[in-house]
């Protein structure tokens, strides 16, 4: 958890900028930042205050090929951005797969797009965008309504090595350990009864980890986190 005490919070922000947090702590900061203005302020403070230290080194000229490669890659990004129509709606989200802080914006976009047309009066709906821990890539969407189904929707196909499987987990705020929601296919929508979740609330963590083919042998994650995210409430009109 990100500390509440202001001094410790500042220290966590500093360690985030410096890069000495564990990857789990680092991810927690990344997930909290878009919605925590105080923490953002601390992070900006540190990145400015420590900046002068980058001038201890003697400059090094990168090879001219680096910029050419950046330019080439930018073309691909642009091609992706403009290729949205004629594709399933989630393919059009390519642009959004990249940005960390876009998650909440994406949630709003999805809230508009995902609402079933002929749904009965909906219960509170929750959405989570599951991103890779380095925030490079959003791979899955979790959508769930109180009293209904949870749907885990892939935005692409997650690569899974032979003899390995994807295991789906959730952890409520303050819960000691995640609860397994079972193994899931890497390329299809999975539906789960919300009644079988321990809870469904805002800021609830969902994650996919890479586990042995038959699932984690010990009932909690043993492999690396591939995608992780927390729920937000989807606004109903």
């Amino acid at each position, binding site marked *: 958890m990100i500390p509440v005490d202001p*001094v410790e919070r*500042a*220290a966590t922000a*500093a*360690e985030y*900028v*410096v*890069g*000495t947090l564990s*990857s789990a702590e680092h991810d927690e900061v990344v997930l909290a930042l*878009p919605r925590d203005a105080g923490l*953002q*302020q601390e*992070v*900006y*403070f540190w*990145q*400015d*205050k*420590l*900046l*002068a*230290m*980058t*001038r*201890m*080194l*003697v*400059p*090094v*000229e*990168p*090879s001219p*090929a*680096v*910029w050419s*490669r*950046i*330019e080439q*890659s*930018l073309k691909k*990004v642009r091609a992706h951005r403009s290729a949205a129509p004629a594709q399933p709606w989630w393919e059009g989200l390519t642009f959004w797969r*990249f*940005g*960390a*802080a*876009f998650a909440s914006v994406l949630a709003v976009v999805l809230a508009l797009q995902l609402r079933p047309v002929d749904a009965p009066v909906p219960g509170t709906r929750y959405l989570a965008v599951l991103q890779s821990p*380095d925030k*490079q890539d959003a791979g899955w969407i979790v959508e769930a309504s109180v009293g209904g189904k949870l749907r885990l929707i892939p935005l692409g196909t997650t690569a899974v090595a032979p003899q390995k499987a994807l295991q789906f987990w959730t952890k409520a705020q303050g819960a000691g350990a995640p609860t397994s929601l079972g193994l899931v296919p890497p390329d299809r929508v999975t539906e789960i009864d919300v009644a079988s979740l321990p809870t469904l609330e805002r800021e609830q963590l969902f994650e996919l980890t890479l586990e042995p083919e038959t699932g984690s042998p010990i009932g909690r994650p043993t492999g690396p986190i591939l995608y992780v995210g927390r729920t937000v409430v989807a606004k109903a009109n």
Partner: protein
Amino acid sequence: MTTMNTETDDLPLDFEAALLRCAQGDQYALRAIYERERRWLMATVLRIVRRRELAEEVLHDAFLQIWRKAGTYNPRLGSARGWIYTVVRHRALNALRAISSSPERDDERYEELLEAHAAWQSVDDSAEKRALAQCLERLEEQRRQSVLLAFVDGYSHEQVAAQLGAPLGTVKSWIRRGLIALKECLS
């Protein structure tokens, strides 16, 4: 590593405006940032990942990330350069953590760092730099060295512990308490 080189520092670039233009899809703005800062960023990344080829790959990936994430930069909270260095350093740290084997002591590299720090301290440029140098100077030696190793070399707690021959828990506390003391001094 010797003293600072300031030859490109006189070229004016409004980094904040450039980064905001990136968010609007202006590729020239990204190019301007690259041209102005590439050699310093390359030095930062190369020091962390050590291999030139990997450093260039990191620089490439980091600039794509700057392009994609530019919209999340908030000019009211701090400088665009600070934001850019965080993106680039974190990218380099990711690469380093992915290739790291067991932490090893490297005294030659450590000497270089201490020399670079000493040379840096003696150059009197910006007010921010002076404040940081003075506050670092006030830290207990081991705390200061831990912070330098973590920031400049991108060392993990384990690597700092191996370099300084200190227990892991002690190093964690040196870094964290060092940063807390630094904040008090800088605020």
